[in-house]
Each structure stands twice: as structure tokens, then as C-alpha cells.
């Protein structure tokens, strides 16, 4: 139970500092908006083209935006050495990861949900009927991005060339998440929408495997 209490306290801190500075959310929303709008103007896709290419474009923009959002996750703990203060205070260091990945998932999901209507208008796709199913896919996909992303953010924050290190480590690893999320989203945006349980199961499996790995080895990532 201690880990849940610590995670709740730390998640509260993550949300409070972000909603006070609004650095991550603003950057991510603007970044995704720019990509989605630029692609729309460049290709001017028809409805059928949008259904074919839209999901891939959407998830690629989410992925690049996530690599931007995850970068400062541990980096800003180094400014005043607050990570050391956290390590000295928590009983279970996994709670630090749990709070950060929960906050990252929440921020990503919020950004994605905000971007969905913009995407629907610009790409002429109907999302209202499948909105809840889309949110489920977005949630599992975002969790799949946030779990390894948070871990690699901890690694890259201690490395040289850290700005380059995170996307280099993260993006190849997230290829399975990109494929599964794109396929699941594409199936929902189809003329005959369907919720693909196989891709959802794959995303859930990916999340469980990486969460377990983080639980087992996360403590070593926090060491100096």
C-alpha cells in the first residue's frame, strides 16, 4: 500500500508543477497541431485516403510529440537535484517511475483527445460514433509510449547528447506500438468500424511486459 500512497503524492506533484508551468502540454499540443495541419495542406487527402493514411500520420505525430514531452521528464529533476531528495524520501523508488509514467500517459492522452476533433475536421473522418473505442486505443497506445519512454528519459537524462539519445533509443523500440495503434485506429476509422481485439491485446501485452521490466530494473536507472 505504501507504493500507492507515494505514487499518489508524487502524481499530485507532477500535475501541480505541469499545470502551473504548462510547458509540456503547450509544446506537445502545438507540435501535433502543426504536423497535422501541414500534412493536411500538403496532401489535401480525400476521405478514403484519410482513412488509409490518417491513422499512421496521427500516431507518428503522437510519437514524435511524445519524444519531445518525455525529454524533460527526468531532466528537470536534475536542475535542483530534486531526484536525490525524492530517492531519500520514498520507500519504493518504483513509485517515482509510476507517478511519472502516469502523468506522462495522462498528458499524452489529454493532448491526443484534444487533437482528435482537429484531425476529424481536417481529414474528413467521422469519429463521434467510435469516440470511446478510440479513447481506449489511445490510452493503451499512450501507455505503451509512456512506460519505455519514462525509463529511457531516466537513462538519457544522465547521458551526454541527451537530446539526441532519447529519440534514438525510444523510437525504434516503439515500432510495435506504432503498428498496433495505427492498425487499431485504422479499423475504427474504416467505413465499417470495428474494434480489433487482437491489436488491443498486443498493446496490453506490450504495456505489461515493459511495466514489469521497469518494476524489476527501474531502481538501477535512478542511481548516479
Amino acid at each position, binding site marked *: 500500500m505504501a507504493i500507492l500512497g507515494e505514487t499518489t503524492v508524487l502524481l499530485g506533484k507532477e500535475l501541480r508543477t505541469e499545470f502551473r508551468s504548462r510547458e509540456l502540454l503547450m509544446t506537445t499540443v502545438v507540435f501535433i497541431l502543426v504536423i497535422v495541419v501541414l500534412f493536411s495542406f500538403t496532401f489535401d487527402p480525400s476521405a478514403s485516403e484519410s482513412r488509409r493514411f490518417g491513422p499512421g500520420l496521427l500516431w507518428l505525430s503522437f510519437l514524435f510529440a511524445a519524444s519531445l514531452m518525455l525529454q524533460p521528464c527526468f531532466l528537470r529533476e536534475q536542475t535542483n537535484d530534486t531526484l536525490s531528495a525524492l530517492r*531519500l524520501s520514498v520507500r519504493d523508488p518504483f513509485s517515482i517511475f509510476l507517478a511519472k509514467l502516469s502523468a506522462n500517459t495522462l498528458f499524452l492522452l489529454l493532448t491526443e483527445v484534444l487533437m482528435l476533433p482537429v484531425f476529424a475536421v481536417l481529414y474528413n473522418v467521422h469519429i463521434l460514433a467510435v469516440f470511446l473505442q478510440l479513447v481506449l486505443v489511445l490510452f493503451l497506445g499512450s501507455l505503451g509510449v509512456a512506460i519505455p519512454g519514462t525509463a529511457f528519459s531516466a537513462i538519457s537524462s544522465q547521458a551526454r547528447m541527451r537530446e539526441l539519445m532519447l529519440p534514438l533509443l525510444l523510437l525504434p523500440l516503439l515500432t510495435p506500438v506504432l503498428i498496433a495503434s495505427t492498425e487499431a485506429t485504422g479499423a475504427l476509422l474504416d467505413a465499417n468500424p470495428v474494434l480489433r481485439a487482437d491489436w488491443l491485446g498486443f498493446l496490453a501485452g506490450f504495456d505489461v511486459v515493459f511495466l514489469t521490466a521497469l518494476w524489476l530494473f527501474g531502481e538501477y536507472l535512478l542511481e548516479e
Partner: protein
Amino acid sequence: MTARPFTPTGIRFANIEKRYGSLYALRRVSLEIRPGEFVAFAGRNGSGKTTLLRIAARLVRASSGSLSFEGQSGEMTDSVSRTGFVAHSTMAYDELTAEENLLLFARLQGIADPRARAAALLKEVGLSERRNSLVRTFSRGMRQRVAIARALLNEPSVLLLDEPATGLDPEGITWLAHTLRRMRDPGRTILMSVHGESEISALATRAVRLDAGSVVADTRAGSDMHAILTFASA
């Protein structure tokens, strides 16, 4: 402020080494710190003072050697949870207020009444009136007071201070000396890195000089302590 009971704690460093690649930060450091001792670590920049304190705080893992915490009768104690640490940096969140910072760490440390404890410490460090101000609006000295308040949250039995007077004005240094005396007198063990002699280093009961990661002088005698500490400032 009501003091919580604590176990007087000694610290034993046995052949501690810390290497970063081929670079030695510490070389076979062996020290026995008695319960209640106030040790000032002196030495030039890069001599290993900070690394030794961070190993004692268990923030850094030693490459070899062992570290143990012992009660007065020699039994092992769970001192990690009752260790206060003040580092070079403030270890406080700029986007939180002084009170929010203390509440955060008090809750994480499982302190019974975090709000009362935070309020008492803010009063003690002279920041009651600025408790609702964001830390990023504070001067360096005020941030250092927040850092010291955070380190004192759990009434630690071992206090580790890495140049705690950094950024404090003369009035702040006098306040810090008073606070440390109050912490030392009941028998807390204090390890502190210093640069030269000051009102604060004068509280030490033992001085250890480090050079290139090795202990080169160690004394409890007043006159020798002066020599060790002034060498550090030379």
C-alpha cells in the same frame, strides 16, 4: 518545536572506493564516526568530500568497500530512513511554494502531521511569511533555508551537509550555526563538508582532510583542527 526521539548513530566507512572509469573519486577511505560526533570534512575542490557524503546518504553506490550505521552498543540500525541531507543544490521544486515543497517530502517520509511539521519548520527557518511563495521567487539564501528545513523534516539521527552555508548571508550563517548546535547537542551525528573556518565549522568536534580521494589528516584536537580547516581555505 517538539523533538522526536532518535537513536544515536555511528557510521563506519570501511575501505570505501569510488571510481568513475579510470578516475578515482575516493581511494580506500576508512573512518569510524562515533555516535554524536560532528565531523567537518575539508579539502580542495575535487578532493572527494561530496562523493563521500553522497555515499553516506546512499545516493551513490561505492565501487568497493562497505558502509554501516551502528547504534551506541554496536548494533546495526535502520538509519537510512532517518538521514537528513543538504546538497550543493537546493533539492527543492521551483514551481512549488515553500510549504508545498515541505508537505511533499513530509508526506513521502510518512510524517504523522505533515502540515504541522511543515509549519513549525517554516517558522524555524524564518520563512513563515513567505510560505505561499513559489521557491523560484526566492533568493539563494532563502532557497538554502528551504533545503535545510527539508533535511530536518524527519528529525534525523544523522545529518549530512554539503557546504550548507552556500548562499547564506552573515545573519543566515549565524542562524545556521544556532540550528546545527541545536541538532548536535542532543547527540545527533553530523557530517559536513566545509571550505575554510567559519562560525559553522567551529561547531565541529573532529576535522578530516581529504586530498585526491584519500584521508590525509584526521584529528579531534582543537589546534590541529584549525590547521586542517585553514589549509582547506588556502
